[in-house]
């Protein structure tokens, strides 16, 4: 596929932004490739009910043993 772009004059007035967050890129200029990926994990299991417990510390898949 042949794709031709003709960039004529771009004249923007004022830009007001509240927030740019989570690896966002706000670019005033040219670019060739943009790849933006976003991974969220909010499963139903993410909601727990009961006494509040801190998140487990320690690497690996096996659950950490609580110190006595």
């Amino acid at each position: 596929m042949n794709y031709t772009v003709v960039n004529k004059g771009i004249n923007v007035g004022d830009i007001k932004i509240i927030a740019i967050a989570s690896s966002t890129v706000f670019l005033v200029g040219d670019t060739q490739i943009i790849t933006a990926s976003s991974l969220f994990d909010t499963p139903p299991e993410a909601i727990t009910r009961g006494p509040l417990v801190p998140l487990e510390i320690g690497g690996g898949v096996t659950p950490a043993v609580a110190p006595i």
Partner: protein
Amino acid sequence: MARISVVHDLQVNVLLLSSTVSVGDSASIAPISQSIAVQREVPAFLADEGDFARYPIFSRPAPQPIVKEKVRMSVINASPFIQVNGIRVLAISAASVLKIGFCGIVDAETRIKHFRQLISSDTDPEPPTTPKPAADAAVT
């Protein structure tokens, strides 16, 4: 090849958590941010909670778009300028980038794992609060 970006006025209030304001050209930028977001019914948090290594979302490869068709792109810059009068930003956070100028490759990635911890053990959610009956009002 690339055009010249002209910004007359730039105002940024807050810049935090490895964010960048960049003026000028660069070959590539690849910001990455990872977060464990914990919301608790009672806001009690320890300083050293959580471990990215425990959750596969932080290590699995991010799906990438599959380009099946070859695209030959040609750009004609009839005007050599990109002009912006003013930019005002309240906050830039979590490995974000505000850039003025050419950037060849942008490869941005964010990963967020959510936790919600509630104290109430009711399995059925409470019905939405309705105006209290007159009997309750009489008690008070």
